[in-house]
């Protein structure tokens, strides 16, 4: 027994010494359950490799969670086992994770929040966010401009959440100022199969549709398949969103059916990790809020947003 204790003690001291030499950044993200989170995971892994190679003093630990409560447990492990100096977190949901992140902050850890914010202000040091209202607004502006301010459109929504509401509200603000009629909106749950079925039913119901706002690229793929089945691809165009590589490729090739895309980059996790790393390896000021734009992707600029190696 005493010998074992001694070994454990030595290991502990070694680990402690190793810990002092290094800055540990914990990255907590949702598991890759669909395309967009798959992109987040890929970018996190890429950035970890880049940062660790560029700055030997940095050590990055990535943990993925399948639910909000699992993510809260992950935070405890990051603190207890990895003794992190900084946390980069893309919260599963805002409310349930606010207190767990606040208690991480109370231990003096540098906190960077990505995408959706926490329910209470003033916890995080850095906030890197996508711009959901901008995604809706940019999509609305393109559709109304392209249709000359009048026509019939259908909308496929995501999963009933704040993200979806913000996008749809901003979209409708633009559309309400035109003579464009929204024939109907239905939830397609950011899912290809649901997109296919909802679009089939829209096509049954409405003989005249000029444009489809699918909001998301997974939905858009289902929509396109339904249009091809009905042989109505040349009557309308489809606007997706997020920047899936297959859709960017279509835009790049000048596909009439998919003329543009609107970015909501999963690479925002990389932005957040880079900024957090800067805080430890340089003395440049980094604290604050960073809102990434949701630019319109057109055939002219599509090549800048095409990442063939990413799974998304």
């Amino acid at each position, binding site marked *: 027994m005493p010998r074992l204790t001694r070994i454990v003690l030595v290991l502990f001291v070694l680990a402690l010494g190793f810990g002092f030499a290094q800055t540990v950044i914990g990255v907590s993200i949702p*598991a*890759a*359950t*669909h*395309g967009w*989170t*798959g*992109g987040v*995971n*890929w970018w996190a892994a890429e950035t970890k490799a880049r940062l660790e190679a560029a700055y030997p003093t940095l050590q990055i630990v990535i943990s993925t969670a399948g639910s909000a409560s699992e993510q809260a447990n992950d935070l405890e492990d990051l603190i207890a086992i990895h003794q992190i100096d900084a946390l980069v977190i893309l919260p599963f949901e805002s409310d349930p994770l606010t207190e767990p992140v606040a208690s991480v902050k109370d231990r003096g850890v540098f906190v960077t929040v990505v995408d959706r914010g926490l329910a209470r202000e003033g916890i995080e040091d850095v906030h890197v966010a996508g711009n959901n209202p901008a995604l809706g607004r940019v999509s609305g502006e393109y559709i109304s401009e392209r249709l000359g301010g009048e026509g019939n459109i259908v909308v496929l*929504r995501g999963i*009933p959440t704040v993200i979806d509401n913000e996008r749809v509200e901003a979209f409708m603000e633009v559309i309400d100022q035109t003579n464009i009629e929204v024939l*109907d*909106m*239905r*939830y397609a749950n*950011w*899912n*290809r*199969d649901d997109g*296919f*079925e*909802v679009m*089939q*039913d*829209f096509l*049954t*119901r409405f003989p005249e549709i000029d444009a489809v706002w699918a909001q998301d690229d*997974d939905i858009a*793929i*289902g929509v396109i*398949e339904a249009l091809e*089945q*009905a042989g109505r691809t040349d009557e309308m165009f489809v606007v997706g969103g997020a920047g899936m590589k*297959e859709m960017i490729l279509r835009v790049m090739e000048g596909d009439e059916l998919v003329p543009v895309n609107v970015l909501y980059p999963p690479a925002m996790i990389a932005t957040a990790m880079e900024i957090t790393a800067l805080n430890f390896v340089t003395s440049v000021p980094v604290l604050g809020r960073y809102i990434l734009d949701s630019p319109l992707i057109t055939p002219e600029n599509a090549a800048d947003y095409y990442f063939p190696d*990413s*799974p*998304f």
Partner: protein
Amino acid sequence: MARSEAAPAPTWRRHMRSIPWQSLTPLLGLVFLLIIGSLLHPAFLTPTNLLNVLTRSAFIGIIAVGGTFVIIAGGIDLSVGSMAAFLAGAMILVMNALARNDLEPLTIILLGVGMVLVAGLLAGAANGLAITRGRIEAFIVTLGTLGIFRSLVTYLADGGTISLDFAIRGVYRPVYFGSFLGIPYPVWVFAAVAIIGAIVLHRTRFGRYVRAIGSNQEVARYASVRVERIRTLTFVIQGVCVAIAVILYVPRLGSASGSTGILWELEAIAAVIIGGTALKGGSGHIWGTVVGAIMLSFIGNVLNLTTAISEYLNGAVQGLIIIGAVFLQRGRSGR
């Protein structure tokens, strides 16, 4: 198909009497739904819409035919949705790999179909053997495999989406979108699976054993029924049915991801129960399951065709109709 239950009878009257009228409730529910739909929108009764919905119902329907065997034998299979996603992912990867070897697209598709049938059979056998040889509750085993298959497809897809090679896609696509005598292929396959399922369940010794195990396992055992073997076979049938559904699913979108087939297991179980099969096992009909699966697809379709009900309440209406359909059944059959 509705009459496959009826025993052959010498006179017309006896024939009528032998039809289980009390278990026709699911059919009444479906007719009721069709009437509502036709009142809501003129396009509802067009052949295009009806065939769209029937084609969609084929996936859940074929899986639910297998589920009917499992549930009648007193088991449950929660893994079918994940298994479908995994088989779809594996099938696409195998076909993509074969595409690099200069084979004819048709050969590649046939190899893919053969592979997925074998894989479905093995996956079902794995579930069944873990339950019977491992003596673990079906609920727990299939809850476990639900997680395993779902993670495996996410892993195979590297967190993204697995997409079918474009050249193969073009040849394979008609399997979902093509039709014979005006009826899409998936509907033909669904009908064939249902008829074979009905014959096996209602006309063979195996079918009788399945029901015997579900109503009383111990009595069946004393009657020298090989309970373990029969029960394992029900899971094998389930696995093969999932594979058949996958063969029809892959040509539709040509892709599979971690979000493929989410909650299909619950839809399949709901179709079986709406169709009049007892969740505790022992009794049930394939034709009821078929009606149940078609009904579930029509609920979604009717809701999409109207603005009368807020899209926020879709799930609530679906839930009410499912509970209502099962409630009517229990009331009528006086169990």
